[in-house]
């Protein structure tokens, strides 16, 4: 679900960056209020744990395996705001240092995995706990369903973003992403339930401390519920009328106006070579070869000097 750069249009990337920045800023403030000085060490070490925990997998059948993504588990154990910070750290490090997901697309990846994943998890777990009660089985089933739904909804968001960017038609992207992640979600759900079973036996207080309070976090409850309902309703509609999303995009000035107007800022410039695409390509090719050649020539010359100097030193 880590979208690389180049797959999202600039307007979609920027809007999702802005939303993510606002949510992260609020999360940083709230966590600082809750945890104080402890914030940095606790969030940092747990982000490392989620990152490493994604290595844990179990074989399903044949070569396929289920593995953990962790948004639901983090939300259930840490509470929503801390989970946002932890998941944002994980996704950012994956993008910056391991090239898993793009840099301009990082806003969207944070939005899908750290914000939607966490908000929807929080909403679902709260909702299910009311129905399933506080028994061990109830908690485990709630954990499973929460993890599955959070993955599923986040993948719908990812597919809709691709469709909005004109990268993948909605009638294909949405069912394909939904189907793949419906399966991945089962693995996530099973591991999450397994982890909850372990923690119920060893540290029951951890689970109760973060999900027991019912008064606060109303905005996340409402937000998570809205996201889940809107995406679940919107996706089938969008995938059955693939032009619908593009229509929405154009209406809102996402695709059409934003990009066309930018391109229209520059009217037909008369510039020798550039207005003829094939000639421009040839010129660019020649310039490119010259750049690379001169750089490698310069490097080769400067490198020749180094061993000589070292010999003298010996």
């Amino acid at each position: 679900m880590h979208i690389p750069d180049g797959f999202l249009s600039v307007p979609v990337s920027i809007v999702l960056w802005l939303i993510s920045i606002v949510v992260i800023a609020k999360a940083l403030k709230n966590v600082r209020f809750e945890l104080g000085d402890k914030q940095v060490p606790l969030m940092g070490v747990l982000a490392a744990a989620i990152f490493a925990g994604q290595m844990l997998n179990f074989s399903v059948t044949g070569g396929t395996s289920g593995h953990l993504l962790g948004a639901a588990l983090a939300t259930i154990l840490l509470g929503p705001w801390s989970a946002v910070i932890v998941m944002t750290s994980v996704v950012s490090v994956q993008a910056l240092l391991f090239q898993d997901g793009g840099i301009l697309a990082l806003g969207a990846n944070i939005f899908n995995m750290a914000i939607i994943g966490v908000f929807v998890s929080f909403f679902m777990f709260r909702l299910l706990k009311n129905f399933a009660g506080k028994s061990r089985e109830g908690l485990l089933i709630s954990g499973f369903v929460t993890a599955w739904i959070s993955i599923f909804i986040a993948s719908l968001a990812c597919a809709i973003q691709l469709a909005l960017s004109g990268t993948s038609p909605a009638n294909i992207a949405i069912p394909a992403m939904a189907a793949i992640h419906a399966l991945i979600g089962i693995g996530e759900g099973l591991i999450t339930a397994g982890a909850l079973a372990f923690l119920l036996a060893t540290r029951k207080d951890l689970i109760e401390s973060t999900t027991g309070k019912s008064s606060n976090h109303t905005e996340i409850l409402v937000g998570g519920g809205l996201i889940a309902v809107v995406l679940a309703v919107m996706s089938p509609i969008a995938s059955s009328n693939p032009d619908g999303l593009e229509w929405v995009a154009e209406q809102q000035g996402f695709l059409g106006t934003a990009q066309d107007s930018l391109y229209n800022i520059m009217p037909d410039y008369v510039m020798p070579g550039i207005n003829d695409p094939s000639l421009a390509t040839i010129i660019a090719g020649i310039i490119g070869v010259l750049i690379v050649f001169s750089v490698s020539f310069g490097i080769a010359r400067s490198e020749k000097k180094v061993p000589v100097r070292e010999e003298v030193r010996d």
Partner: protein
Amino acid sequence: LLEIYKPVSSPIHQLEARVKIIFTLVFIIAISFMPSGAWPAYILIYSIILSLIISSNLGMSFVLKRALLATPFVFAAIPLIIYGPEPVVQTRIFEFIVIPISETGFLRFLSIAIKSWMSVQLAIILAATTHFADLMGGFRALKFPAIFISTIELMWRYLFLIIEETSRLIRARSSRSTTISGNRKSGGSVFWRAQVTGGMAGSLFLRSIERSERVYAAMLARGYNGTPIERENQAFGKEEWWLTIATILISGFILFIAILTGV
């Protein structure tokens, strides 16, 4: 999972981190703005990337191998070829199979793949030539929220330790659930295996929470008062300013060419 920083000496490694961060961000944004089919601009951008790879001593194969990691996502754009806008050409493959291919869709697919491939290489060059501490120092100096940067620094500090712990958990599981090599079936049902893995995840979480408490206590003992101590950055001097201005001018110029020549 390997640390991507490659400690070789090169002019690119010695550049100030902020210069490299700005360069990478500006170029990736410029690439994203480029319309599809702007071949001259793609060639110019790639010749800059190629020059950077050569002058940073990273080695072509290193960068290209890492860039491959991002390719699976290309599948998401493949439907564009078939379901792209008109005109659609019915192309015959192997006598029987006829596939509709939209020319505009194919062009767009190719452009998305190339643009994404170039962006990944830029990100690889940044991470492979900048030490983690310098990279974070650069982000901090660029006024990214300090508390978030500190969290990521601490995460990095403990990441490799916890990854080792995870590998130990996995090794312990493999040595206890008997598997005969070649026979992929390991003991128990899928639910049992998931439960074991879940137990591992839970215990990893628990150990990490406990570890973070020890880390916090150690930080307090060393005089931590809520504000992490920041490293001093290299000065952002005249040369850095010139490089930054050059970055913006060159990327702007190539973007201009892209918009004139693209579809």
